């Protein structure tokens, strides 16, 4: 048997990655819609220790699916309890226009958040809807990256809509969560000319060839890794990159370096 590099050897033996992996798309907290065991900070931290993930960028499920303030407070508590291990996104729900900017200010100024998460699909609000403009203006002023859910055929956040949004708000760095799901090829084309867009990899269907297709057709510097845990398994998401047929250098960029650059620019402490 031959393995291509030390990352694969570590993963095959179940040993943590030897450099600090950054998970740029994670969540936290229990869900009503399905059972996820130990979705709290301690349960997540155990997985991070086993795999070598030094930092997880989290948005609270409650903030997305229910009350944004209650959820954002939960994410803040995880950051406080485990300093340096969790970096929260402030979830912005545009369905509460009178509250949303105040909530972002509270998260940034009182809790020290530096990033924003939006979920146009769950919030039934198209990315190009004016309701998001104030959120993107806030992000531009604060230098905050915005992680948005993107999904194939979604009338609220399909790739063409996400591309139009990124073009319109060129001063904001957008992380396209899931890289459009089944619309990856379209995402590669659309994001190619958008320097403010990063493609994020979390996927519940781990197609052979997906990572290789992406790295072969898009600048590796703009591909970042996320796991979507504690919904789906972080180790399985890590495995699809570690065992991809790409160089160890590219794997390290995707799993750590690219995210570190984004987070550092946003003011999130994340050096080793």
């Amino acid at each position, binding site marked *: 048997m031959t393995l291509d590099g030390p990352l694969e050897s570590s993963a*095959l033996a179940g040993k943590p990655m030897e450099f600090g992996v950054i998970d740029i798309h994670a969540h936290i907290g229990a869900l009503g819609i399905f059972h996820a065991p130990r979705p709290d900070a301690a349960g997540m931290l155990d997985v991070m220790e086993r795999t070598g993930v030094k930092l997880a960028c989290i948005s609270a499920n409650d903030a997305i699916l229910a009350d944004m303030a209650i959820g954002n407070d939960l994410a803040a508590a995880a950051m406080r309890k485990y300093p340096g291990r969790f970096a929260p996104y402030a979830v912005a729900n545009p369905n509460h226009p009178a509250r949303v900017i105040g909530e972002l200010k509270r998260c940034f100024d009182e809790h020290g958040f530096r990033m924003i998460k939006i979920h146009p699909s769950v919030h039934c609000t198209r990315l190009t809807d004016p309701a998001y403009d104030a959120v993107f203006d806030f992000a531009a002023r604060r230098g905050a990256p915005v992680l948005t859910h993107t999904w194939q055929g979604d009338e609220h956040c399909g790739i063409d809509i996400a591309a139009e949004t990124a073009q319109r708000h060129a001063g904001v760095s957008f992380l396209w969560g899931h890289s459009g799901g089944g619309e990856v090829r379209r995402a590669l084309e659309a994001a190619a000319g958008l320097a403010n867009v990063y493609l994020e990899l979390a996927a519940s269907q*781990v197609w052979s060839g997906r990572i290789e297709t992406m790295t072969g057709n898009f600048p590796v510097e703009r591909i970042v890794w996320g796991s979507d845990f504690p919904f789906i398994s972080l*180790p399985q998401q890590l495995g699809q990159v570690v*065992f991809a047929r790409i160089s160890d250098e590219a794997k390290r960029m995707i799993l750590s370096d690219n995210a570190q650059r984004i987070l550092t620019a946003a003011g999130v402490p994340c050096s080793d």
Partner: protein
Amino acid sequence: MGGFEFFDFNICLGMPRIPMYHFEQDASVVEAQLARLNITGGLVRHTLGEESHPSQANRHLTRALDGVERFRPVWAVMPHWTGEFPAPARVVAEMKSAGAPAAVIYPETHGFSISSFATGALLEALEEAGIVLMAPQSQVSLEAITKIARAHPALHVVLMEVGYRKARDLYPLFEQCANVRIETSTYMLHNGIEEICHFFGAERLLFGSRCPLYNPGAAVAGVTYAGIGDEEKRLIAGKNAVGLLEGVRR
């Protein structure tokens, strides 16, 4: 190299109708790719089993596996009443002759009921022969699997491609049916492997990757990094499969 040797319970050869990306189809190439990850054997289906007729699939699978030593075939099966598929006794004889230790059903796609009036005779024959029954979760509800497992307590049932949102129904199924296992390819639930081991034991899990359609490295890492003991990892990776298949009467 780690100490975990894998046996893959979910390999599927053949070109799917709607492929997302390029991947290798040739059995010997797939075999070599898996060996790189210490996956040293596996059970193999053919895409035609679901997308076409079982007889067609089994013929192609036999050809595809010719000369491939580490893979064993999984035959697609269906009830015989319409005359388009052999009667159960003959199916079992042909499977044994072909070295197939497991059968897979696609009742949703092939439009037959898994109730005893339609499928009972087939399942009885498989149970009697000790042949493992496999079924993708998209093809059979967990409720239906419970009925099958209860009606055929000596039949080893392996539920395939279980979604990560299914724990609330999967756990009562495990609790009530000791003869049901799942393969792990799509069971991507956070801490999901750990919790099944804790509640029901590692014996209920069989490593599967759904390769070559899926990247097998994802499934491998799901086991090697699980928060369980090394012996539990070895059971899931391969020992459970070896034990289960040794029980198939030749």
